[in-house]
């Protein structure tokens, strides 16, 4: 197992600070880069070719380039067939197909997908905590149909997702999800985002180029991040990074402007502090697959889990999600000054 700090994984990218966007308990921090990786299939070119069995789906890459099947790719069929998700990211060679392990996200429904009747462009991406659970309960080469059933039950007990299937959550909260997606906009040169839900980082996501970012934008913002944010709201676990403008000193428009500037600076600082603290964390990684000059790796730490694709030493794809469910968040303990921060010595 190799080790690397998250900030080193993110080398070559920067944060679009002025384009940070926030609604309710969700903050999207754009990850931007001048350099794109273009010899890669569009996400829309990776398609379901055949549903083989409940825990395995055959995907094909119809483009002339290598393709990445996204971690947490999910399809709701609206057929008498089981909705499925893909726990690991995969590399698929050009014009080739690959049998890929899958988990079920619709316990009460049996039947295999009829790929001809699927609206494949309407794929989704699992909410961040379920993305983490999918990785934790499956391996790269093997996945159980039922691996996510207990987690689905925990995800939204009041929606009865466990029995009705994950899509029932999206139906129930359709309006709220639409409001969330409405409130965020892609930014120039954006290839990814760091997403904070409540006051914690829920995910780091990166795709190879801007065109793919636009293709994955709705499934990520609406179906993955916003679903997680809404779940937190439902569980009444809302923490917001925003604060009310301090208007004590406001008497003129100039003083109002100063108060506004102070407020936004504080807001950006809170976000920066959280990100800076988290990117210092070290994660371990191991290679899962190599196709041409691309390496697919699994990443793991106490806090985060995910998949990434390296081109040389540079990350071109990243799905790194927080492991902890919101209602089991790791507590922050108070720092007491009298104790030293000196590292443990043997």
């Amino acid at each position, binding site marked *: 197992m190799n080790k690397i700090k998250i900030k080193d994984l993110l080398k070559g990218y920067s944060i679009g600070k*002025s*384009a*940070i*966007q*926030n*609604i*309710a308990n969700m*903050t999207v921090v754009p990850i931007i880069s001048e350099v794109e990786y273009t010899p890669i299939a569009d996400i829309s070119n990776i398609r379901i070719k055949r549903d083989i069995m409940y825990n395995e789906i055959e995907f094909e890459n119809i483009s002339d380039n290598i393709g990445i099947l996204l971690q947490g790719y999910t399809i709701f069929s609206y057929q008498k067939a089981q909705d499925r998700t893909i726990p690991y990211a995969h590399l698929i060679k050009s014009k080739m197909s690959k049998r890929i392990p899958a988990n079920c996200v619709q316990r009460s429904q049996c039947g295999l997908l009829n790929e001809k009747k699927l609206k494949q462009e309407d794929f989704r991406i699992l909410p961040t905590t379920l993305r983490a659970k999918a990785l934790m309960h499956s391996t790269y080469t093997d996945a159980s149909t039922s691996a996510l059933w207990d987690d689905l039950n925990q995800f939204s007990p009041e929606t009865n997702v466990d029995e009705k299937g994950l899509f029932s959550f999206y139906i129930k909260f359709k*309006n709220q999800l*639409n*409001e969330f*997606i*409405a*409130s*965020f*906009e*892609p*930014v*120039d040169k954006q290839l990814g985002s760091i997403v904070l839900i409540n006051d914690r980082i829920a995910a780091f996501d990166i795709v190879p180029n801007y065109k793919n970012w636009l293709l994955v934008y709705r499934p990520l913002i609406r179906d993955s991040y916003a679903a997680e944010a809404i779940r937190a709201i439902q569980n009444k676990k809302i923490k917001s*990074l*925003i604060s*009310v*403008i301090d*208007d004590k000193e*406001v*008497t*003129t*428009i*100039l003083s*109002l*402007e100063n*108060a*506004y500037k102070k*407020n*936004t600076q504080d*807001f*950006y600082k809170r976000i920066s502090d959280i990100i800076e603290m988290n990117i210092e964390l070290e994660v371990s990684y191991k290679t899962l697959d190599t196709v041409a000059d691309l390496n697919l790796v699994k990443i793991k730490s106490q806090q985060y889990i995910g998949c990434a694709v390296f081109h040389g030493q540079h990350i071109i794809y990243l799905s790194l999600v927080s492991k902890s469910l919101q209602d089991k968040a790791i507590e922050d303990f108070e720092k007491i000054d009298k104790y030293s921060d000196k590292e443990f010595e043997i």
Partner: protein
Amino acid sequence: MDMIEKLNAEISLISKLKSLISFINASNTSIAKETFYNTEDEQMISLSKIHSDALNASRIFYALMLLVESATDENKKLIALNLLENTKVSLEQKKWENALMLQAFSKMQVNRVLDIFNYLVDMKVNNSRTRNLILEFLKRNNRSLSLWAIKYKRAFRRIIRHAHISSKLHEAILFLSKRCPVKDPLLQNYYFAKAGEKSAIYNLPLTIARGFAAKYKISKEEFLKTFAEKGKLTQKESRQQAQEFKAEGIDTEVDPTKLSLFDLYIYLDSLVTLPIEAEEYVEKAAKRHVKNIAYRFNDVGLVLDTSLSMSGTEKTKKHPLYRSLAFSVLIKELSDKYKEYRLNKIPTFIPRLTAETNYANALLEALKAKHKFIFIIGDGYENSPYEGIANQIISIFKRKIDINNEVIFIHFNPVFAAEAKGVRKLFSEDLNIKSIGIRDEKSLTSALFLALCQKDELSALKIYFKELLRLQNEEARKLHYLIEKNKLELDFSVNEE
């Protein structure tokens, strides 16, 4: 009237007021089509509810909305359907409503009118009122029937069968009944084109000619070139096809001075190079339109949303932006002093749409300039630095700086949002700043009326109702007089008291 009755009457009045205001708002923006955020179905369900509430609040007011120039065709279609489907009214009122419908249909796109009639066929609505309405409409459009017979062949045939239209009315009816031959030149050309005579294609309307060109495998280049020489394009077709013709190196005759502001922006943005007269065209179109508008403003600061979400959908690319630009130049024409504040500060003639929506910075700039009116045009989806900060700024400004409420804020929204059942609001209720739907220059009067509602909803609605009555043509006015004479109190008179 005891206290409870009074209270009930007040509640009923407030509810009617809200329904009508929400209806006026939606009728200016909603086209029941997919937007950046909502699907077509969501839009339609939401719009139907707004219509049903308005119909229940005041049928007369509801019917008169057919005449509002700014109401979208989609809304007019729904009004007509609801009036024809809900038949429990007096004969006088039915005649009056038919007159209103005919007046409105005369200004609507014909395919929309035929859509309405076709819906009646689907619903098997075949009473004498409906048949008369269809017959009267066709009589009044006798000159266009040949064109409709070839352009909307199937729909038109269904309608004439449904309404038992006699072939004595026009040769087009014979044509549709397949009892040829006919003498009408357009119908003859259609026959010749169908029979394989390629030269006849170019005497047909563009859309039909395209179909034949594809059938006879005429190359796109050859077709467009010959059509530009021999065929005839309407102004709107010229504008819509300009880019395609240009790509083939063919110049079409678009006269920018005859386009509406909205169409003008679409046209100008479709050009590879902006003509040097662009600003002049826009200014002239704006001047032409504001001539008959009574509202004037002395000092306006206008905050213009130039974020990415103003780009609309694939089908309605940049339409929210074009609407906003058209509205912005009209406000400029109506103002003695005017300054525009774009969110992204990019000063190009047609704004480049970029990323996040930060209203706060632009609002503060406008506040510093001490304008009397601050208008905000945008979709209301604020996200930067965070949602709600513009609301905080205006709230503090009103509480601590503009204590006497001298500055008037209005939010104009060019996007209908299904989840908001109208347009999305930017400010909280306590600030009493309305969010008003806008579509194009035609919606300016309605939008400014809605702005007046900020001060007094009931008075504003009364003025608007009088304006609606004024819009009736002679025929409708006479019939309306009969209703008033025989009945008659307007169902809206509750509000007028």
